[in-house]
């Protein structure tokens, strides 16, 4: 059992939970994730470790409530507990040791970019972050990223920062030159757009993939993605890959596998099923 020590609403549909998991807090590295199961009978959900406090023994999970299982998770309150937390899983991010990095985060992906930016900054790498959201209230981790370097905020409606997509701002940064590596995490279309943007600049681009997962140990093969024409298991070979080699169409397509099921589950949850806890 993993007690929830803090809970905070970050945006209209994104919640942060600080969860007791001392071993994971002690050893986790940027880019790694955990698989959680809220309660007995619950689904196994992969979530990136957005931050950790080894002294308190907590890890921060940033959850976008999209389906029944994630909604059940964010319905938990401080002092409630998450039944299972397994990890840290996946390979840590390959961090450059010096130079300049551009970190791009879209939506909840910003929570994944944050530990990367933090680790880069700690190494002395110069970090520029470009983050985005639909509108002001959807932008997350702005203050945290500010501590790691420059931050450019983009919103679709211009209610905060610049109006436009993260790719527009990123393009300007790249054009200005001097960027050694790009880290991009967000919705699949955004990562694809970033990979397409950076390709002509010849800048190495790391993306973090979020396919459907079950076990997270390489046992089921459900998380398979194609990178450079080869099938890889994101949970053990990734989750981060060379964005210029990822087959984003396949990733987006396979993410649709359970759409119908999710829609049905959501419809049910909107009705009376919310009591299940």
């Amino acid at each position, binding site marked *: 059992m993993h007690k929830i020590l803090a809970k905070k609403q970050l945006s209209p549909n994104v919640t942060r939970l600080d969860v007791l998991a001392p*071993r*994971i807090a002690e*050893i986790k590295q940027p880019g790694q994730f955990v698989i959680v*199961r809220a309660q007995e*009978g*619950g*689904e*196994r959900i992969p979530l990136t470790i957005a931050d950790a406090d080894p002294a308190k023994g907590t890890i921060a999970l940033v959850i976008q409530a999209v389906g*029944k*299982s994630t909604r059940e998770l964010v319905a938990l309150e401080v002092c409630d507990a998450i*039944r*299972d*937390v*397994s*990890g*840290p*899983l996946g390979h840590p991010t390959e961090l450059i040791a010096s130079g300049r990095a551009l970190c791009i985060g879209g939506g909840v992906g910003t929570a994944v970019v944050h530990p990367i930016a933090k680790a880069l900054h700690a190494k002395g790498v110069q970090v520029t972050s470009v983050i985005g959201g639909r509108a002001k209230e959807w932008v997350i981790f702005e203050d945290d990223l500010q501590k790691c370097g420059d931050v450019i905020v983009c919103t679709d409606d211009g209610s905060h920062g610049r109006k436009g997509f993260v790719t527009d701002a990123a393009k300007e940064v790249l054009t200005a030159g001097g960027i050694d590596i790009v880290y991009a995490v967000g919705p699949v279309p955004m990562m694809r757009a970033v990979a397409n943007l950076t390709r002509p600049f010849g800048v190495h681009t790391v993306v973090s993939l979020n396919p459907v997962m*079950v*076990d*997270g*140990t*390489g*046992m*089921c*093969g*459900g998380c*398979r993605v*194609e990178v450079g024409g080869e*099938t890889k*298991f994101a949970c*053990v070979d990734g989750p981060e890959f060379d964005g210029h080699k990822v087959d984003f169409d*396949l990733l987006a*397509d*396979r993410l*649709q*596998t*359970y759409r119908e*099921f*999710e829609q049905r*589950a959501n419809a049910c949850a909107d009705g009376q099923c919310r009591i*299940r806890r």
Partner: protein
Amino acid sequence: MSTLSAKERMQITRQSMPEQDAAERSRNFQEVNLGFPEQLALLEAQRCLQCKAAKCMQGCPVMVNIPRFVSLVAQGDMAGAAKSLMGDNALPSVSGRVCPQEQQCEGSCIRGVKGQPVAIGYLERFVADWARNHGTVSDEAQPAPTGKKVAVIGGGPAGLTAAGELVKKGHDVTLYEALHKPGGVLVYGIPEFRLPKKIVASEVDRLTKAGVKIECNVVIGRTYTIPELRERFDAIFIANGAGLPVFMNVPGENFKGVYAANEYLTRVNLMEAYHAEGANTPVLKGQRVAVVGGGNVAMDAVRTAKRLGAEKAMIVYRRTKEEMPARAEEVHHAGQEGVDFQLLVAPLEVVGDEKRWVKGLKCERMELGEPDASGRRRPQPVAGSEFILDCDVVVVAIGTKANPLLTATCPEMKLNKRGNIETDEAGMTSIPGVFAGGDIVRGAATVILAMGDGKRAAQAIDAYLKK
């Protein structure tokens, strides 16, 4: 009763296992075999000729003293039979259900030469279930603690057996399991209708009561590495299974609706997608499901598809039924349940619709040629025989290979070229004090071999710790 002559014994015919009706069971997940009632067990046990040089025992990978426990059953001494059996085999209620008896004990039984062998597997299951239902507690005294700490990695049959044996010897045992529930293939792979989960749960319960500490959600290689464990433990037993699914490497294999059997079965078993309502983890319930392969895993997947409501559940196998590595009983049961066997058929490509959902499996027909290295006749394609099998879900059950997750964090451990851990006779790896067994050593093998490895390694670990 126990003083029948050999001739009288010979006259008793093999008792058949009561089972759920095929049509009915192919729509539910309850156990197919219902188990011998006591009088059938008594009768069947009397068929045993009590051979002096018992061939059956040599056929058993863990050398269970079969004539002894069977004769105790024949005498009606179930508690005695249970004690005898469980002294030889830690999880008889599991092996009694899933061992390929026809290739092992029963395959060697003298009575099988001219007729039907003694139903040793059914008797094993009977005795084990009797013991579970009668709550027989072992009369073994609590062992004196040795003060030695042993880590067991993996909660499958190899790990569970080793943990049980080690705790019996007084060692302080911690078992680490990557998933949220121990049992390994017994809980995520083998379905409820063949091995009810409550049986595995009660075996696990017995271990925890005996003092084994089980920590789930710990992935060795990530949460802790082998070098880290070596600092905290006096010995380690690695039993993390075979793990990684193998795909066919044909076009279309990443279309929506193609599963590795491990994923399909895990969703249904461990994640309980078999519950009609309220399941949180989804699984695609195909109308026409094609399962590629001919082993136990393929049989489990195809019979699961049937139970999830498939109109047509098909096995696609490139050889014939004779070459199938699955247990004979499973192939037989699958046939009874209406599974369609597409034999001498090999997949070439998964065919998808415009939205990349599976809509068929392009196959070609095969014929058997000369025997290959495994002694089985090698299938060869028949020219121009291509056809498309209509289906909306494809399950790939053609094997697994060693998962490198754990071994990658311990480069000094010797592996063979397939990535399996190398051990000596006793089960010790190239690192002193680190032992391994089960599928991670053998490649995909069997439950009983994994249990045998667990037991042997426990003995070797005990000897190592006493040195």
